[in-house]
């Protein structure tokens, strides 16, 4: 099942090789390898607890792998914490929308990377102006720049989280269930955004357990079950039933289902 469209054999943007991590004897991720090419969306599918979020948190720096290696543009990367991940232009949009509730949208967008004046003070005006610029592109309806993000709807919070990732020139974007908290209109907005980012050559890992999202948005899908990789398939080659049986039975299409 390695029939990908990338027959030209370019260097992958990300290669995670033989990743392992265990929590107190439970092998949450067990010898899993995945890769991602520029301008590609790779879906990570699986049940709750299959290990997909855990796998990707080793890339975003939230967890440290027990073993395995991560290559970025073919070179070995050392990712110990979220700051390291950022230095490789890896940006993450978390399922839990990691925002500081009492700060406004602009402050959250620039959290940890505030714009400062020459004297070293936080430049709120510049931050708000930049926020307005990026929001005009992502979500033109967004107006609540002065309010704390706790006053925003799920979709608005999501746009802040996405804007944060996009603003800082992400090369590799990780989206953990980006549409889980959203209404249909906002989901549509995220889909369009993904297409737009793809066109800019950004590689995206999309974690989801919605097969239809994956079929619609992704180029390839890697399916996990019980911490192990079931397989990686080209979404054009499979039906939703194929994906479903990979998730549930842990068998690749073509293999006899037990």
């Amino acid at each position, binding site marked *: 099942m390695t029939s990908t469209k990338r027959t030209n054999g370019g260097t992958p943007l990300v290669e995670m090789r033989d990743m392992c991590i265990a929590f107190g004897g439970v092998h949450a991720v067990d010898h899993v390898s995945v890769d991602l090419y520029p301008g590609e969306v790779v879906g990570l599918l699986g049940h709750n607890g299959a290990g997909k979020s855990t796998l990707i948190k080793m890339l975003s720096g939230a967890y440290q792998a027990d073993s395995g290696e991560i290559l970025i543009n073919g070179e070995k990367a050392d990712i110990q914490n*979220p700051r390291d991940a950022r230095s490789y232009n890896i940006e993450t949009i978390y399922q839990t929308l*990691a925002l*500081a509730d009492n700060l406004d949208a602009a402050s959250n967008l620039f*959290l*940890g990377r505030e714009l400062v004046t020459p004297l070293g*003070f*936080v430049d709120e005006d510049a931050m708000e102006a930049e926020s307005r610029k990026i929001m005009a592109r992502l979500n033109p309806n967004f107006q609540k720049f002065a309010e704390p993000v706790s006053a925003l709807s799920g979709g608005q919070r999501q746009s802040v989280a996405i804007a944060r990732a996009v603003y800082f020139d992400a090369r590799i974007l990780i989206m953990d269930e980006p549409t889980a908290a959203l209404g249909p209109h906002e989901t549509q907005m995220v889909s369009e955004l993904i297409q737009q980012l793809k066109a800019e050559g950004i590689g995206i890992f999309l974690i989801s357990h919605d097969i239809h999202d994956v079929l619609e948005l992704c180029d390839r899908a890697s399916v996990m079950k019980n911490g192990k990789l079931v397989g990686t398939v080209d979404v054009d080659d499979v039906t939703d039933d194929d994906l479903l049986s990979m998730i549930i039975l842990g068998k690749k299409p073509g293999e006899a289902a037990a």
Partner: protein
Amino acid sequence: MTFVKTLSQKAWIWSFVGMFAVWLATAVYTGGKGSADVLTAALSFATFTVIVGIGQMFVITTGPGNVDLSIPSTISLSGAVAMKIMDGSNAMLAIGFAASMGCGVAVGIFNYILIRVLRIPPIIATLSSSFLILSSAIAYGRGLKIKPPPLLADFTTAQIMGIPVLAIVIILLAAVMGVVLNRTMYGRSVLAIGQNMRAAWLAGINVERIRFFTYLLSAVLAALCGFLLSGFSGGASLNMGQEYLLASIAVVVIGGTSVAGGKANVAGIWGAAMFMFLLVTMLNTFGASAGIRLIMTGLIIVAVITIAGGDEPQR
């Protein structure tokens, strides 16, 4: 009208409202006699509470469970060390001040090591370190009855037109710390950590470094308070920090800072410190007995916090 409304939504305004209310009540009772002197005294004494209150505020703002209980003993240690080194000599003033700051830095680092390396909850860590610090002060400070250098004593008690010079300096300090809180990356990080520590970490903030600086800041400010207070009160004593344990926390809370973290206010600390002093003065003026005084103090503080805590409901 909208101005009044926005103002009444600021939690810190209530500490100033309370302050003026008790001051007015006192003035009315005494027929206005000496009410200016009362304000001068309030400024003098509130100054010291404000110094430690600012440090405590930054600590509390880093989130639930963060509090510095070692402030009183740091005040005592810093005062004792500074007095002994200076030995009443103006020439030693700079060295005494440096030694005092050194105490603060040492305490801050020690507190942080307990919290970070030994993973002790801050409330226990700073409480236990306060015993160690106070013991050091006792062991060190045998000659506690040393007068401060005249220059220090003069500076800490000087007044310009009834306004204590030290109070002016600390108002400036509070203004600077207000800018630090709201307009620097450090202050932003403190607020973010207090609101959502995990989000702050995931956003790439170096959470542990920020917490280290915060406990360091609190200890250094406590040391500064000890140094100035021993100049003000004519020497150091081992229990001179005692009343600042609860006072440092009370002024932070009354001043509109959230105990849950992530929301802080520097101006409110000044109002709250003045309020606390004037409240006791008022009850004294009314001739209330010690028991009544304590009960009233408690009740009024609860009332102020309840009114000030009438935050617009979140969501």
